[in-house]
């Protein structure tokens, strides 16, 4: 049994809602290079919660939200204050503000005799997803449609749903303004879109999303969700709108994937389930790491492939150019060892085989020579090389005996220096462009 309505539905729903909510808002923190602000807020709301509880003597979600939101805004103001007047860098300012506020919250819990209610610092860290059990759950999934009362739904899920709807509304209504204020706050302000105001609005939403989420999933998952989905999506696209949509999908995927990893994988090894919030956090980290490696445009792998492709093209270019130059010295055929000496490669065979396969060179009794197609390609490379040499001496004023190395690198690149000269600085003939008959 992989999915038990009574045990799994509410925790999964809460995790997914929290992940999407934080993932959505996290995009803008990332863009402003303020992701750690989410970390700071998620810790420093604690004294806000305790003080709100002390004043109102209730843990009703609304009271808690108000307390947390105020604490969130206070955090942002304090960070700005410390940054400006304490003359410390932004990261340090956030670090000092949130650690002090969090400690204050812990002290308040300890000393203000609120320990008997369950506002404990432990569950702030890893949440209490597993406690969201649905005692009156129907036995089968089809039974869901006949559930008449919504009373059984835990208030965490209701709060999260409301915050998520508000956050989606906020981001879609003010998408353009948030984009402008994140990109160029000065212009936003001169255009009449007060960037400070937008910043605080965003921070209020972050504070609300944080507090609504961490009661269910804990602050570790909140921090991960503020950063990982947005960062993953950023690696996959260069458009903000796409990034936001992708980040929401990724957040949803990691929540579901991470949750089932926690409930199913330990079972394969005969172990009990692990903490779902922790598992989702690890899962989101894995998704991000994987994306860093395999992302088509920004990934390590694709960069590596591009580099390998380039170097293999350069090797081929060099081979053809070498054979062309030998041909100019009336050596139309070269043995594998001649080539090996000329291109400084101890094992030229794979390269030669590749060139033969592409019909650029041909092999006859152990001797290699350029084919018709190879002649054309070689001519164009040598032409580029010698045009570059001419350009570097004539236009850039380099000494004629210094330009070979530079031209050797430039010849593989797309730009071609202007045609015209007939010979290079050493007096060698610059071959005609094979494309122009």
């Amino acid at each position, binding site marked *: 049994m992989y999915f038990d309505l009574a045990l799994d539905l509410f925790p999964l729903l809460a995790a997914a809602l929290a992940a999407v909510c934080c993932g959505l808002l996290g995009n803008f923190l990332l*863009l402003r*290079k303020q992701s750690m602000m989410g970390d700071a807020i998620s810790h420093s709301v604690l004294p806000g919660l305790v003080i709100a509880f002390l004043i109102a003597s209730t843990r009703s979600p609304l009271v808690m939200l108000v307390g947390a939101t105020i604490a969130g805004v206070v955090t942002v103001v304090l960070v700005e204050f410390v940054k400006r007047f304490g003359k410390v860098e932004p990261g340090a300012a956030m670090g000092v503000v949130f650690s002090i506020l969090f400690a204050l919250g812990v002290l308040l819990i300890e000393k203000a005799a609120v320990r008997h209610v369950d506002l404990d610092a432990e569950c702030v860290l890893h949440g209490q997803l597993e406690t969201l059990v649905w005692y009156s759950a129907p036995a089968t999934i089809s039974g869901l449609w006949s559930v008449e009362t919504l009373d059984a739904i835990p208030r965490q899920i209701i709060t999260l749903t409301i915050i998520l709807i508000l956050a989606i509304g906020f981001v879609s*209504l*003010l*998408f*353009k*303004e948030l*984009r*402008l204020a*994140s*990109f*160029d706050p*000065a*212009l936003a*302000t*001169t*255009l*009449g*879109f007060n960037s400070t105001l937008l910043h605080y609005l965003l921070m209020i939403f972050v504070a609300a999303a944080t507090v609504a989420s961490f009661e269910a999933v804990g602050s570790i998952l909140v921090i991960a969700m503020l950063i990982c989905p947005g960062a993953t999506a*950023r690696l996959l*696209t*260069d*458009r*903000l709108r796409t*990034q936001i949509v992708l980040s929401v999908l990724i957040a949803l995927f990691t929540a579901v994937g991470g949750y089932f990893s926690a409930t199913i994988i330990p079972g394969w090894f005969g172990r009990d389930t692990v903490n779902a919030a922790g598992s989702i956090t690890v899962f989101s980290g894995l998704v991000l790491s994987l994306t860093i490696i395999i992302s088509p445009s920004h990934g390590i792998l694709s960069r590596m492939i591009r580099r390998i492709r380039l170097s293999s093209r350069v090797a081929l270019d060099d081979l053809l150019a070498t054979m062309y130059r030998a041909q100019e010295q009336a050596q139309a055929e070269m043995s594998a060892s001649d080539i090996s000496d000329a291109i400084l490669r101890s094992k030229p065979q794979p390269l030669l085989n590749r060139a033969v396969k592409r019909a650029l060179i041909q092999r006859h009794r152990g001797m290699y020579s350029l084919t018709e197609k190879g002649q054309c390609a070689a001519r164009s490379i040598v032409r580029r090389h010698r045009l570059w040499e001419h350009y570097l001496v004539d236009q850039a004023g380099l000494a004629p005996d210094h330009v070979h190395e530079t031209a050797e690198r430039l010849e593989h690149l797309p730009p071609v220096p202007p045609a015209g000269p007939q010979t290079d600085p050493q007096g060698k003939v610059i071959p005609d462009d094979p494309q122009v008959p």
Partner: protein
Amino acid sequence: MTVAYHKKPVLWDVDYDAPANKLIAIVGPNGAGKSTFIKSCLGLIPKASGLVEFWGQPYRKVRSRIGYVPQRESVDWDFPVSALDVVCMGRYRRIGWCRPVTRKHKVAALDCLELVGMRDFANRQISQLSGGQQQRVFLARALAQQAELYFMDEPFAGVDAATERAIIQVLRELKNSGKTVIVVHHDLQSVPEYFDEVILLNMRVVASGPVGEVFTETNLHKTYGGRLTLLSEAAEAIARTESGV
């Protein structure tokens, strides 16, 4: 107008009345307060005292008639937007709060990109553009604001020759259509060629007026011949007393 950073005055008693329909250069050494001057005119930095008026009105009443090109380094060019997105930002005030960027505005933005010779790059992500191209995108964004008065902060800084030509051509077209442009400029040689008026700035206005009258060796020497030691010391002293040290 006097402007202060952290209580330390960086611009003293700047008094300048910009003539309409002219290209105006602000020149002065590093740290003379050129950018500060522009930013405080636009209300981005609070001024310690004084008054800035545009056509006899305070800035917030005439926002839509004033365009601004910040320094290129002031933004993160890795931001996930295209050149067209950036130019559309110039039209946000026209579009208004909470309303999406419509096709009409995109077409207008494309026309602005055309004017700076960047139409072919509209869909490029901005980090894939060269420095000069990025500067032209910023210029196109200012054009999209369709303002009457423009402030530009070092638009010629570190650009290639093609971009410099494109920018100066746009500036001249702006002037021909009756606009006024105030430009922070760092290349003294090109001032007489490009501009009609000049403000020589070094913590205060050393001289201002038509280039032919004001742009003289004596005035330049006064502007660039080191800071006024006494004025710098006074600024430091004010900073100390005001912050209570």
